[in-house]
């Protein structure tokens, strides 16, 4: 059992994500809506990258492309040198909306990936483990309509974490949590990432959260999104939010987002 767990961990080590010159657009009311413009970025194995940008600039769109749910209009996306053409359980995405299956209990929702791949028999313990990690031990048998917004989001996070992803794509994973749970979950997620070594690409609208958790913070421009800056956060974990370097970066990031005057 122990050796199996270790194997999983080494197998699950982080993947390289390569985004090369990706542009994307939608057609909205017969008009072309450019959303991503020539995005190039590379996430090293086991790195933690955060994406910051104004609402509607195209962050979720980029994440869907990375997951293989949509194909880009231009450019290419690769994971470990292999073209991303369709979804694969080695890259798991946590959507902005929890989108839990209302007919499944919390436990069954979290177990969805294992069940879909026929691994449920060996993975029951994992489901329990992850549910207690997100603090939903007592709600295993609840249905989604019996949960609060923040709880639903934590189930959705658990559903992603149960699988052993090599690339974890998180779309505002903590967006609906109250500030206290949020602080705890930031710590838990960072710890989990350090422990398991997967690569993380996380969208957030919280500058401080990005700086507390990620090694790199990529700031997008307004739509169509271009990369405006790629900030490196070379601070040891666990980080303190009153660290002078962090405050300096915060100032810089807010400035890049056009919020200098407010700050």
């Amino acid at each position, binding site marked *: 059992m122990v050796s199996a767990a270790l194997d999983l961990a080494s197998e699950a080590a982080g993947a390289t994500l390569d985004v090369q010159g990706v542009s994307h657009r939608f057609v909205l009311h017969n008009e072309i809506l450019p959303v991503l413009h020539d995005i190039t970025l590379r996430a090293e194995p086991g790195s933690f990258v955060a994406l910051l940008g104004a609402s509607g600039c195209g962050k979720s769109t980029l994440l869907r492309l990375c997951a293989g749910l949509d194909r880009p209009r231009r450019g290419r996306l690769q994971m470990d040198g292999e073209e991303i053409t369709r*979804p694969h*359980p080695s890259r798991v*995405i946590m959507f902005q909306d929890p*989108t839990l*299956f209302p*007919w499944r209990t919390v436990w069954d929702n979290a177990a969805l*990936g294992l069940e879909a791949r026929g691994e449920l028999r060996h993975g029951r313990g994992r489901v329990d483990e992850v549910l207690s990690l997100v603090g939903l031990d007592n709600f295993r048998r609840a249905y*989604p*309509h019996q949960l609060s917004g923040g709880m639903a989001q934590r189930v959705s996070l658990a559903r992603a974490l149960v699988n052993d992803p090599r690339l974890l794509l998180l779309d505002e994973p903590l967006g609906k949590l109250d500030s206290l749970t949020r602080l705890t979950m930031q710590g838990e997620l960072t710890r989990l990432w350090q422990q398991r070594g997967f690569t993380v690409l996380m969208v957030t609208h919280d500058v401080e959260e990005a700086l507390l958790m990620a090694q790199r913070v990529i700031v997008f421009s307004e739509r169509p999104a271009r990369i405006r800056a790629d900030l490196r956060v070379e601070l040891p974990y666990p980080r303190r939010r009153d660290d002078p370097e962090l405050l300096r970066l915060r100032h810089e990031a807010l400035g890049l987002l056009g919020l200098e005057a407010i700050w």
Partner: protein
Amino acid sequence: MSAIVSVNPAATQGIAALDDDVPRPRKLLAVAGLAWLGAAAAVLAWADTQEVARTDLLGTLAASLGGLLLLSWALGWIFPALARPGQWAPWLIVLATGLAAWETATAKLDLLPLPFFASPQAFLEVYTDDYPRLLDCLYHSVLLLAKGYLLGAAVGFVSGVALGWSTRIGYWVHPVLRLIGPLPATAWIPLAFFVFPTSASASVFLIALATWFPTTVLTWSGVASVQTAYYDVARTLGASQRFLVLKVAIPAALPHVFVGLFMGLGSSFAVLVVAEMLGVKSGLGWYLQWSQGWAAYANMYADLFIMALMCSTLITLLFRLRDHLLAWQKGMVQW
């Protein structure tokens, strides 16, 4: 200002009533018991004008019901669960009054023309004297309905899922469905009885057809309206096509499927009665026709009553099944 702060007295009373957790037997329950005893007395003591049998039985039944209600009211003071029928007390009172009025207008005073208006005794007599035939009819109706409905529901469900899932199947089946589906199943009766070797198989086909259409259409629309986000979630977690159909599309569409099944059950009742009137030698629909031929109106009413019970029971069973399978939904209609 003070009006905002003041507490609504009715609301506080409501809270007090909630605290009162040992329900006392309702006075109305005793009234209902007395009402039934009164009806029984009228039946038994008053001489019949019409020539009817079973007066004693009717009186005894009414008196027993009255006695039971009084007993449950009395014992309800000790065992509150026994006073449960109390919630139906208003209904029971109205029914006792109705029985007394019906009895007066028919058997006692002979005010209503025979044979259209049968007395309660005549009604009762049908059950005591003709029950073997009625049971046989009920058995055959349920059997026929079950065959046709289950066949139609199964085929309808499968074709609905296929239509919703596969655009290629949809391409071929959709136009056929649109043209043929809305046609009432009864329109096929002449053809069906001609084409099928036995009238029994023709009846099964017609009932199945009536069930098939609503089940298919609603299953199809249910599957087609499943949020793509559900599929996205499952696909990114490594779900196969099979998993997407069985574990995503079908459970998500199930509330729609049940609407279709309910509609199908309704139309299958209609077809059942018509098909039985035309083609078979035993069944509640056949019994209707047969008793009408003999101008035996009491038999007809007795048959209608059984039919209503049967339909209502089947609908209830379907509701139970739905409640069981869709326990995850909130705010469901209680049947």
